[in-house]
């Protein structure tokens, strides 16, 4: 089992590097920006488990992400629960949302699932806006816990996100290489044939939707502590919908590498760009690049590299 051990070591090394970086207390901007990029690694990976592996497109990423964030807000307000509990709870609730939406729509053609997720964000946002306990439309301030490791809470969150992204990628990689992943690939390629070849397509789809939801919720749970002021517009930001989708599609959807590449490239570019161009312009460019890739290079960067290598 040399390969698994090697993977474990690589994962641990990355986490170690992240912790080291946190401990070094370099320019705080590194941690602020790094958090966002790593958050996107988780989100892109989560999206890809359903979108890339199974072929079901989720347009409602903000809904799952925000649900994780607002679950955390709720728990912070009511019980002052520690961060690990927030993360677990956020993942659980978003996972249930995924399961629910999946159960209602996955027996039908994939396009109906996608349409439902498209409408989902708006509906959920409306509901949150009307829920005063978590701040409603005005938003809510949360106070970060005191005495964080690494001195600054954001630095601590950065380290947490390093851990979460390594976990997310590990989960994705594990699924991809397992019999579940092969079944998902079969149902993505041809669902009817897969079902007739013994693949329990509905069950696998529900699995993918749930895991994807869990990871998105996990990505959202630390968000309140990161921003300290949570309000629906930022939690349900359209950025998330587009990026969570564009990053895997640009990076490449068939393997766990694609979302990571896409998240790092696009995330870094956007962090650099926010200083120079408006956020709308930024989104516009992402949209154009996305369409360009979908039309011209559907296999993403990973696919382009493969073609260049001649495989």
């Amino acid at each position, binding site marked *: 089992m040399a390969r698994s051990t090697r993977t474990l070591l690589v994962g641990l090394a990355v986490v170690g590097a992240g912790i080291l970086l946190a401990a070094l207390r370099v320019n705080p901007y590194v941690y602020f920006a790094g958090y966002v990029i790593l958050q996107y690694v988780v989100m892109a990976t989560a999206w890809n488990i359903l979108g890339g592996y199974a072929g079901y497109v989720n347009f409602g990423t903000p809904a799952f992400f925000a649900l994780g964030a607002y679950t955390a807000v709720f728990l912070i307000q009511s019980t002052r629960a520690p961060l690990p509990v927030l993360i677990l709870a956020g993942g659980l609730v978003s996972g249930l949302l995924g399961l629910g939406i999946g159960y209602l729509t996955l027996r039908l053609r994939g396009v109906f699932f996608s349409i439902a997720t498209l409408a989902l964000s708006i509906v959920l946002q409306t509901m949150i806006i009307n829920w005063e306990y978590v701040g409603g439309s005005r938003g809510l301030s949360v106070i970060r816990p005191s005495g964080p490791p690494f001195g600054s809470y954001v630095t601590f969150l950065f380290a947490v996100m390093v851990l979460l992204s390594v976990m997310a990628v590990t989960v994705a990689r594990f699924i991809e290489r397992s019999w579940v992943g092969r079944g998902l690939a079969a149902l993505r390629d041809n669902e*009817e044939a897969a079902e007739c070849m*013994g693949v329990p397509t509905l069950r696998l789809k529900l699995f993918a939707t749930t895991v994807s939801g869990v990871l998105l919720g996990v990505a959202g749970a630390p968000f309140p502590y990161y921003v300290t002021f949570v309000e629906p517009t930022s939690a349900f930001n359209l950025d998330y919908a587009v990026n969570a989708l564009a990053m895997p599609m640009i990076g490449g959807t068939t393997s766990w590498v694609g979302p990571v590449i896409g998240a790092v490239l696009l995330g870094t570019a956007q962090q650099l760009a926010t200083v120079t161009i408006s956020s709308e312009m930024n989104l516009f460019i992402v949209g154009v690049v996305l369409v360009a890739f979908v039309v011209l290079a559907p296999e993403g960067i990973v696919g382009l590299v493969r073609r260049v290598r001649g495989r």
Partner: protein
Amino acid sequence: MAPALLEVDGLTKRFGGFTALNGVSLDVTPGERFGLIGPNGSGKTTLINCVSGALPADGGRIRFEGRDITAVPAHRRTRLGIVRSFQIPKPFTSMTVAQNLAIPLEYAAGARSDGADVAAEAMEILRTIGLESKAHTRPAGLTQIEMRKLELARAMAAKPKLLISDEAMAGLSSAEIDDILAILFRLNERGITIIMIEHIMRAVMRFSERIVVLDAGERIAEGTPDAIVRNPVVEKAYLGE
């Protein structure tokens, strides 16, 4: 007489106002070579879709090995041993030929195999069918007949008790038809019951021990190939009014 492997009892299927199958009944005995023919639109593929579970029936029952499977989902029917190939090949395009076989080996046959090495088994099946040289090619790089063979190979990998071959020979040359027929005969020799749906008469007549004829969703004739050929009702159905 051996108990039937597959019993279709009064199967009905409607699409909106159109009745595709109207109370069709038939039995298939274990080890039989069974032919299902009928003019275009007679309901053959619909019948197969209902038997395999791709479509839910509107009426009637389906029994396999004595057990009522009318409500059993398609993937579980495959695991029970009912396997179909598709008229228009539906390969898994992102995988190699060998990987295409790995799916049914793992998912359908996994329940009933001895845990043997999947890759080796896949190669063995490909050797039987003559595709071993293309084992690591993607379906996009296959010819028509190779795609048809892949369909059959995939079905074989699911370790069927009942194999339903849906127009596997349409559009093939005479030599290619013989090729596929030989494979089907060999499978039958191993004890696999085969239902063949075909338009290519010489193939069906040569292959089948017993034939059922459908027309406009109803069973209009049944018998040996000789009897069917001479049956005036069948002739009329094909030549039309």
